């Protein structure tokens, strides 16, 4: 006899977490982002047992504070870029002030975890923001350059070309043609 099943991984994981935590009498709240809040501290032994039990289900405890810090670096960079005000600080000063770590430490950690330097990530983010504005607004390149704190349109264009391999004009033309195609197929 054969049956077919379909499962929702999210529910499965939550259920497993719940059962395993209850088994060890650990009061908790499970959030959807894969974050679990434990209502009391665990002893070394308990943590080891929990992590052993979970690993048989392919669930891993990220005791890695570093991964969490990398995420905070990214969030801080996004906040800084989205502030829409001229930046008085350089990225390095801004990050070390906000996060209370030396920039050298942050920068090494970031490169190790993401295979990219913080500087490159900032450029990638800015270019992504520029693309967003080109795709979804009527702003001219000059206006976009001003908004994103580029010293000139030429600077924006050359950074755009260097990062994507395409000129802003070509990028816009491709997006327009894609849209045209989508309308055609509808």
């Amino acid at each position, binding site marked *: 006899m054969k049956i077919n099943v379909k499962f929702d991984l999210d529910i499965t994981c939550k259920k497993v977490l719940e059962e395993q935590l209850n088994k060890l009498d650990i009061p908790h709240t499970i959030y959807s982002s894969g974050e679990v809040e434990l209502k009391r501290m*665990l002893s070394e032994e308990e943590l080891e047992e929990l992590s052993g039990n979970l690993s048989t289900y392919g669930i891993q405890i*990220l005791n890695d504070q570093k991964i969490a810090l990398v995420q905070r670096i990214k969030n801080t960079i996004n906040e800084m870029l989205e502030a829409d005000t001229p930046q008085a600080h350089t990225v390095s000063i801004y990050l070390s002030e906000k996060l209370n770590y030396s920039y050298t430490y942050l920068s090494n950690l970031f490169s190790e975890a993401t*295979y990219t330097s913080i500087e490159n990530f900032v450029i*990638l983010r800015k270019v992504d923001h520029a693309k967003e504005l080109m795709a979804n607004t009527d702003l001219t390149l000059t206006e976009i350059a001003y908004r994103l704190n580029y010293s000139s349109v030429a600077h924006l264009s050359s950074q755009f070309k260097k990062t*994507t391999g395409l000129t802003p004009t070509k990028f816009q033309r491709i997006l327009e043609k894609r849209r045209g195609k989508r309308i055609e197929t509808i």
Partner: protein
Amino acid sequence: MKIQSAQTGAQILNIALADDDEDDRQFFQDAIEDISIKTKLSLLNDGQELMDYLNLPNVVLPNLVFLDLNMPIKNGMQCLKEIRANADLDKVCIAIYSTSCSENDIEDTFVNGANIYLNKPNNFNKLRDSIEKVLQINWQYHTSNLNRDNFLLRL
């Protein structure tokens, strides 16, 4: 106290390459093994093999597919169109990997939904560097909430 859970192995990039030339496949595999980003590479001999692979019932979909344009049975352009017409394959990034430098070919693949256009370099170090750059940027799109719809890269 807070703990975070993740599925084991989530930090590995799954990559597929479809290329009918055996030397090119070997070359590519050597280059990718030389890069520090952790990857799992699947090699397919032509476009039809790739599509069959992507349509397997329990397949772990690749994050990134490298696609040669000139292949027998089913060429790269046909694969590109089929992949982009299939909503289940929405999250797969497509890198065209070709010897053609024609601006028309390049634009045409982008318009049809390719994310990356990479010219086959003629020496190993250049290939290694190009693939590394593609993987780095792809990694950011994979982990940083950048807008995939606007992901275009020409190398």
